[in-house]
């Protein structure tokens, strides 16, 4: 669209060129309803009194996890999400993926954003081999695509470096080996909008470097990448834009250096 400027920061500095939005988050509120959080949650007497008084389960508590966040992400951006534990980063990510309903406001996306992760689809009793196939199919690949990618996935994971482990059940793997295979399967597919939640800290040093390179590749193929991490160095390495969330509110949205710098010094604007 705009290749007149050679500047690397083109998308940040050029104020005159329209960019193609990929994710529009418009004043989003997300409320979790937690069942059985009240006192005496499961006792028979409380259940009966609840039925008699026809009150909607008193044990339901509302957690307002995201309170009115708005931002727009554009094609080609890699955006970091930072904030303390429980600030609402992962919730925000799940909502962008369309896996959580918004209480108020809307999230509009280009195509179907995907979370990087297939852990839930894999089964420990099965061999690594079958898990690779199952995981790829779960992400929506066709059997032909799976066959084409299979060797790359196994090579990338490095599972077979110390013998033929891929034909053993996954429960026999060390935790590091399991994590490596899971990441390799998850990263095998390219996405329009890719959402990564703390996935970079697995495996040994060499594998971590390989995964960072793979993320960069995925980023090139993807329209937009979101990365949630507590590891500020990987945010600095991968993202040029960062959003700081605290208590479900947007604190700061700007260039990574500025935002992460202030976050580390604890200077809230």
């Amino acid at each position, binding site marked *: 669209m705009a290749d007149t400027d050679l500047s690397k920061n083109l998308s940040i500095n050029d104020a005159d060129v329209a960019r193609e939005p990929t994710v529009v988050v418009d004043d989003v509120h997300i409320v979790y309803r937690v069942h059985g959080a009240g006192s005496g949650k499961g006792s028979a007497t409380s259940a009966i009194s609840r039925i008699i008084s026809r009150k909607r389960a008193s044990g339901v508590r509302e957690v307002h996890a995201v309170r009115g966040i708005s931002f727009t992400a554009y094609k080609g951006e890699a955006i970091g999400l930072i904030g303390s534990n429980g600030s609402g980063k992962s919730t925000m990510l799940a909502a962008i993926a369309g896996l959580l309903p918004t209480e108020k406001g809307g999230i509009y996306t280009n195509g179907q954003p995907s979370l990087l992760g297939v852990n839930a689809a894999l089964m420990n*009793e099965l061999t690594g081999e079958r898990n690779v196939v199952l995981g790829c199919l779960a992400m929506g690949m066709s059997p032909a695509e799976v066959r084409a990618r299979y060797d790359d996935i196994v090579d990338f994971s490095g599972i077979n470096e110390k013998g033929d482990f891929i034909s053993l059940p996954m429960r026999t793997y060390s935790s590091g080996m399991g994590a490596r295979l899971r990441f390799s399967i998850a990263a095998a597919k390219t996405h329009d909008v890719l959402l990564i939640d703390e996935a970079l800290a697995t495996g040994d040093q060499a594998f971590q470097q390989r995964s960072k390179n793979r993320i960069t590749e995925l980023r090139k193929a993807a329209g937009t990448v979101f990365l949630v991490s507590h590891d500020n160095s990987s945010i600095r390495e991968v993202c040029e834009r960062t959003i700081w969330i605290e208590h479900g509110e947007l604190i700061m949205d700007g260039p990574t250096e500025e935002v992460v710098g202030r976050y580390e010094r604890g200077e809230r604007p």
Partner: protein
Amino acid sequence: MSTVSEPVSLSAPRGADAGLTPKQLADKYGLAVSGRRPGLVAYTKQLWARRHFIWAFATARLVAQYTDAKLGQLWQVVTPLLNCAVFYLVFGVILNNKDGFPKYVAWLCIGVFVFQFTQSAVQSGTRAISDNLGLIRALHFPRASLPIAFTVIQLQQLLISMVVLVVVVLVTGVKPSVTWVLVLPALLLQSMFNTGVALIMSRIGAKTSDISQLIPFAMRAWMYLSGVMYSIQDKIDSWPPFWQTLMQINPASVYMDLIRHALAPEIYNKHVYGANAQELPAHLWKYGIGWGLGMLLIGYVFFWKAEEEYGRG
């Protein structure tokens, strides 16, 4: 402080788009609401595209299920056979159903295996969503894949049991006949019925987890009412017509009778067994087709209606 958005906000649209609200911007570039339920046709297409996943998931589950047991997948046939033995002892010997009943063992075993097919579809359907929340919260796929996959698991198990059933039927002295071919359409119809029921139960089970406590009682009542171990036709002769019809259109009885008639037609043969021969209810195939098609359609639409709500809240 205003340093956040100055000098240039990274979120604000620029150039020709400057000044558009987020909603207008989304509309202009054709962005869709994330996670919205697709139309019925689009949904079916997505589901069809995931058929390989459904099959692989079902097979993987089946293999993983018995890895801890030493006898492995053998339990799939041993369990219903043990059930048959218990029922034979109680209903056949103690309550004396077997005397004069044509091929009682074949009758009982077919009943147990066929009812088990529907029963396990209901049970696993109820838990299809609630037991797989992790998968639902991590990946995008048409959620109907799960209850359908669980029905495929039951079907795969049934096909293994069918081999055992054929052996049992042969041992009881039933001769192979051309009617055995009819087992296939009957099982197909029952699978369609089961899929529909599993879809309905998984939507209910996803919302109301208490339902799984009630299922065993409901299934037991259904089993005793469907004539797994005795003949309904013998009992309902004197009943009011309404109740007779109700007992006859019971889908569990319909599919059991269809398969009994296909595998061991002589049970119903008056020339062989005279007054003891079982009477085949009328319109059996019609009911079977109606239940199969109707339940599948109703269940599918019912499940799809709540597609975007699974795994949330």
